[in-house]
């Protein structure tokens, strides 16, 4: 019997859902619904599609089974000898088994099992109509969508959701799937645009739904909205001979802020262009979600593009309104720009002592002292190593000024401009460009895709600032747990690794962490960073390192582990060792040799505690076989050659030398039994292998490598 199928359409009609949450919510709904529908055998391998707009979350499946298949199950009962008497009549045992399974005694039959003959019954679980199952599944799936913050509106014990649900469409084919959810009854009619569309629109199926909504000024699919926005942005900009300031996150945001996005052009007074463009763009995008426009030469033009939730600006009132709001905001920004600079950036320093960084870690004033000390330490050690751009005075000055903008009116109003405003003020007040740029950049990178600070001074302050936060937070027990990471320590750690690797900075993690610890001890809060905490910070940084190396450098995880297991203090060096390993790994001798090394490690681990078998040195007079002598000689020779290459930083050459050991190693394992009966011989062989392993493991611990599947 072939089950018939019908289309499923679900729409959850809400009051405006926060734009940033809609894409995640529709993804979650997709996963939850697919899970339930396939668990109920209704999905049949078909896919569930979901999409959303500010007032609706939508799910559709082109062909959902109308009824579950019947399922037949065999249940084994008592042994045949117990179920039937010698006369072949069923006993009480058979009767009660049949009753329990809900079948006639006469329908029982016997099956052969390894334990003998048993009585069995066939049980048929009759498939239920999909509509019946959906009545339970759909409301449960909706309620299960996870949100960052939920509310209740029908009473304290009512459903919790992101915003009130006001209507629900639930259709299987033409049939309504009836259920109640938070005082709403599911039905078959959707709701159009608030002002331009109808409030009651009967629909049948996903295509009809999308088409009818479009006629009612709702573009239900985000792709359609995004395309409309992109086209209109480009068209209006081109008409003015301008281009849109590229801003993909803003496009994404307005796509989910509007059900019928339309772009309009507005103007502002030329005189505001005297303000730095960072500030103008922040004012336009942050509060008002406007796109900035640029002239051919890259400078900003005195126009903006706003996205409205209508088909057009009928009376021209909307444009005038947006222009007026922007004018007021620009006027505020100009006021802050002038008022803030009535004194110099450094004059704000004393105020930082009144701003708490973290209760246990003291004020920003204290943090600045620590970051200065750590920045000086970084610059000094690099300068001493011949990196002449590492200027201690610049690093110190940049660190001193870095946080001053936190107490300016501009940053208090536009917090997202922290660092940038300080950099702009520093530049306007004729600090050296190196210092001003460093202040501007020192929060970077704010993500894996964000660039690192432009100059070395900025990189130094960024590293010092992030490490001070990391070490301080770990020291007072604020390490991130689960999804909670209020001080963005994961991002900070990623930043440290990213800057170090991209600038190829020679840096000992242990020394860096220790230096940060000295700062926390010398300046308030005068904390001691224990060895245990230092280890936690190291592990935390190495976790981020593994992530970056995997995601951004495309190294295999076992190569990363192999290199970090050998040494992990200097990240740039580790990357060079991984690169060498990746190259050499492809050569023919390498994988088999790595397998042998892993075997050696296993043998040594099984041989019991090291001190029970290790000799002070290999004793050649105890060798029994030629293979032992040859391996010993080769290991000595290759070991010292590889070590010379390693010291010279020639990791490829070192690994190539190690790879030449393969014949001797193979030969050894072919002809020598390590665990010899005679104790001295056995200990000597174990010591030989242990020395070999030690000598070849300085670049990478080969036993971490996972052999390629053959």
């Amino acid at each position, binding site marked *: 019997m072939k089950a018939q199928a019908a289309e499923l359409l679900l729409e959850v009609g809400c*009051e*405006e859902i*926060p*734009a*940033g949450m809609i894409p995640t919510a529709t993804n979650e709904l997709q996963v939850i619904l697919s899970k339930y529908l396939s668990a109920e055998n209704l999905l049949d391998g078909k896919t569930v599609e979901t999409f959303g707009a500010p007032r609706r979350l939508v799910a559709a499946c082109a062909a959902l089974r109308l009824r579950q298949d019947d399922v037949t199950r065999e249940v084994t009962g008592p042994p045949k000898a117990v179920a039937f008497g010698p006369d072949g009549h069923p006993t009480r045992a058979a009767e009660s088994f049949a009753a329990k399974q809900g079948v006639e005694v006469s329908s029982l039959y016997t099956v052969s099992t390894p334990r003998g003959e048993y009585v069995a019954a066939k049980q048929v679980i009759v498939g239920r109509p999909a509509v019946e199952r959906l009545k339970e599944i759909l409301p449960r799936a909706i309620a299960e969508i996870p949100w960052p*913050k*939920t*509310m*209740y*509106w*029908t*009473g*304290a*014990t009512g459903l*919790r959701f992101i*915003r*009130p649900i*006001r209507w629900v469409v639930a259709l299987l084919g033409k049939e309504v799937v009836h259920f109640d959810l938070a*005082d709403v009854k599911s039905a078959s009619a959707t709701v159009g645009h*608030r*002002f*331009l569309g109808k409030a009651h629109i009967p629909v049948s199926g996903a295509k009809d739904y999308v088409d009818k909504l479009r006629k009612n000024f709702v573009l239900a699919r985000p792709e359609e909205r995004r395309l409309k926005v992109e086209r209109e942005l480009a068209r209006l900009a081109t008409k003015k001979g301008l281009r849109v300031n590229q801003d993909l996150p803003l496009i994404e945001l307005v796509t989910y*802020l*509007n059900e019928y996005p339309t772009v309009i052009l507005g103007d502002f007074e030329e005189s505001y262009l005297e303000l730095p463009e960072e500030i103008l763009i922040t004012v336009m995008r942050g509060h*008002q979600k406007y796109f900035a426009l640029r002239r051919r030469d890259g400078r900003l033009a005195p126009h903006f593009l*706003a996205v*409205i*939730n*209508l088909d057009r*600006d*009928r*009376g021209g*009132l*909307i444009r*005038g*309104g*947006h222009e*007026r*709001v*922007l*004018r*007021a905001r620009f*006027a*505020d920004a100009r*006021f802050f720009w002038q008022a803030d600079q009535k004194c110099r950036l450094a004059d704000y320093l004393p105020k930082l002592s*009144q*701003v*708490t960084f973290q209760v246990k870690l003291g004020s920003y004033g204290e943090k600045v002292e620590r970051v200065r000390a750590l920045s000086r330490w970084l610059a000094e050690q690099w300068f001493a190593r011949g990196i002449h751009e590492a200027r201690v005075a610049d690093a110190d000055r940049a660190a001193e000024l870095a946080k001053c903008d936190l107490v300016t009116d501009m940053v208090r109003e536009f917090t997202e401009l922290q660092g940038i405003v300080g950099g702009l003020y520093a530049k306007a007040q004729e600090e050296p460009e190196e210092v001003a740029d460093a202040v501007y950049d020192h929060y970077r990178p704010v993500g894996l895709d964000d660039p690192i600070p432009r100059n070395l001074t900025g990189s130094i302050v960024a590293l010092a600032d992030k490490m001070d936060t990391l070490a301080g937070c770990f020291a007072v027990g604020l390490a991130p747990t689960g999804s909670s990471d209020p001080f963005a320590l994961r991002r900070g750690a990623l930043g440290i690794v990213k800057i170090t690797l991209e600038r190829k900075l020679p840096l000992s993690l242990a020394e860096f962490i220790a230096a940060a610890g000295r700062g926390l001890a010398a300046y308030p809060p005068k904390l001691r960073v224990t060895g245990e905490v230092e280890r936690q910070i190291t592990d935390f940084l190495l976790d981020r390192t593994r992530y970056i190396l995997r995601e951004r450098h495309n190294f295999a995880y076992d190569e990363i582990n192999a290199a970090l297991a050998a040494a992990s203090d200097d990240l740039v060096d580790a990357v060079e060792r991984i690169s060498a390993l990746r190259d050499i790994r492809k050569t023919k001798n390498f994988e088999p040799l790595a397998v042998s090394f892993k075997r050696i490690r296993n043998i040594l681990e099984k041989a019991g505690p090291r001190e029970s078998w290790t000799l002070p040195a290999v004793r050649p007079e105890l060798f029994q076989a030629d293979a032992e002598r040859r391996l010993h000689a080769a290991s000595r020779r290759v070991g010292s050659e590889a070590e010379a290459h390693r010291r010279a930083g020639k990791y490829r050459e070192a690994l190539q030398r190690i790879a030449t050991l393969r014949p001797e190693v193979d030969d050894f394992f072919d002809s020598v039994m390590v665990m010899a009966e005679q104790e001295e011989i056995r200990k000597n062989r174990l010591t030989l292998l242990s020395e070999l392993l030690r000598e070849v493991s300085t670049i990478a611990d080969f036993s971490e490598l996972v052999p390629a599947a053959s």
Partner: protein
Amino acid sequence: MLKGPTFQDLLLQLERFWADRDCVLQQPYDVEVGAGTMAPETFLRVLGPDPYRVAYVQPSRRPADGRYGENPNRLYKHHQLQVILKPSPADIQNLYLESLRAIGIHLAEHDIRFEEDNWEAPTLGAWGIGWQVLLDGLEITQFTYFQQCGGLNLDPVSVELTYGLDRIAAYLQGVDNIYDVLWSRDRTYGEVRLAEEQQFSAYSFDYADPVATRKLFDLHEKEAIALLDAYAHAKGEDKKRFPILAAYDQCLKCSHLFNVLDARGVISVTERATLIGRIRQIACRIASAYLDQRLPVSASALASTVQEPA
């Protein structure tokens, strides 16, 4: 060019609209408040199970926002129209939009949107979920489903609409400067209010004596706490008419004095958090006492459900 209603007609139109929808029209509360939410008609009425609908204009003082009357958009004192609907009706968004129509806004000619903005008042132990409503990019209303007030979970949920009357009037009249708004047919906002803005800005920023202000804060706090402590021992008729409402006035005084100190620039960050905590503590105790006085049984049950949202 828009030719909107005068400021006073705007007030009258909105009050008429909500009076027609069964709201009690209240008068502004006569103690300084920073927001319409703080008037007892909101803070206390949203507590407990009794349905209620109220609308009132509340002049709200924000000393730190004062600009000596020189900024065209910022005010020491602005006017809110505060609407509380308890429980929140299912068609509340449409009701709200109708009220905009009632003041002459043609909805299809404007870009009106509900943008996420979850309101919270740490001094009151109150927060809710909702939006700011934008009219052509201008914030005109805070729209909130109250979830907690005075640290207590609310059941039923009230919806709070807070209209920013001054800026709505400026927008509808098409003027850029708030002081140019026509208050009545022949008087401007500036004629009616400029002196007040100048003098109270000057007081908050330059003249308020920090020592005296702190002392006043302490005195009002002490009075509130003394009342609350006494309530704990009140019985019978004394308990029924015990002045919880007077304790709340003391709490409002603390809140306003805190705002003055803040504007005066004499509060450090740590002290700030401490002072807010002290006011919240009183506010939360008042909320519990208010409920206890009205429904002695369920109050303790409600108090025990206090929790952070998921």
